[in-house]
């Protein structure tokens, strides 16, 4: 059929090997504790794996750009949902009109 891109099998195999390698990488880097960079690194590796799957396995790279736009919009709104909710929970009790800690944890803290 004209216009349908067929990804060659070798590219598919190469992408698969890359994905397994990245999985091994993320498993290893999780053992060594690098403090605050743990989560961003894990997310970066997972993000790159996801990108590989989206671009090659799902052939978004060769597909119509509007599908890529929709998928990007979806991911953008997940990020918006995450950051705006964290604006609240991470800064809760910033000006003292709401308690920073829950009552239970303050009582627990007081007991120890």
């Amino acid at each position, binding site marked *: 059929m004209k216009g349908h891109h067929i990804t060659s099998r070798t590219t598919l195999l190469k992408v698969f090997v890359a994905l397994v390698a990245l999985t091994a990488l993320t498993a290893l880097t999780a053992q060594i504790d690098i403090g605050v960079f743990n989560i961003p690194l894990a997310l970066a590796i997972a993000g790159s794996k996801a990108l590989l799957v989206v671009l090659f396995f799902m052939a978004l790279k060769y597909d119509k750009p509007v599908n890529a736009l929709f998928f990007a919009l979806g991911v953008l709104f997940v990020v918006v949902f995450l950051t705006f909710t964290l604006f609240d929970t991470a800064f809760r009790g910033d*000006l*003292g*009109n*709401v*308690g920073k800690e*829950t*009552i*239970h944890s303050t009582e627990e803290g007081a007991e120890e």
Partner: protein
Amino acid sequence: MTGSFWLPDGASTLSPDIDSLFYFVTWASIILFAGVAAAIVYLAYRYRRRPGAVPARVKPSKIVEISWVVLPTILVLVVFNWGFRLFIEQSVAPPNAYEIYARGAMWKWDFEYPTGTVSTNELHVPVDRPVRLVMSSEDVLHSFFVPAFRVKQDVLPDRYSSVWFEATRVDTFQVFCTEYCGAGHSIMLASVITHSQGDFEAWLASAGVDEDTPLPELGAQLYQQQACFACHSLDGTAVIGPSFAGLYGKTETLDDGSTALVDDDYLRESIVDPGAKIVEGYQNVMQPYAGLSDRELSALIAFIREQE
């Protein structure tokens, strides 16, 4: 309720600023609305369909389009900035504020003073002095709202939320619960009573204990103060709890089928630990009133005994 057409009389230090912002936005809205309405009426009349009249082509001009994007943006950002500065003042209590703990429960408010005395549904505060309420809820979400002070803050279970105000005159102000909390949401009312500094101290000292009032009379006060009326009527109609009329001496059938004679011990237990015995047909929603002193308990029982 005196006050202007839109707002009740303000009685806190911040209410004049909030009112002026409210009126600014109201007047800006009225002017905008009048402009829109006038334009519609004029255009509708001027260009009404007349036989043979062919509408002329109008070339949309960029300047007009830009102007009614930029002008509202400026107006709106001015209002935002004004509101933002006031909101910061509302959120941060002055350091020397007098702290009172407030507890919202299903359909009543308890206010606990630093001296330990607990007053229900009546918040006594000194005038011309900042007061900070540190609030928490014992069950679901509630919200502490005093229209006269223009303050409101949701009361959360398991997390302290606070609200502050400084009353500017001696009076009694209405308190509402404004976060839906079930059947008694609309009767979960309280009142803020402001006193001069001297009267406040006098009230605080006496509020703890009063030996002289006879038991049934004290019981009647408690019936109001503790908001028993919210669930127990005196005229026999069942509200949320059984009615007190003719309750004393009756044998009640409980929800597990057994029966119990309503005597002093039954009443005392039902007040301190309501969940123990539930009368058939009623739900187990009553809050335990563990904070009452023995004298207050016997006063309540004396009051109930008198109800035929």
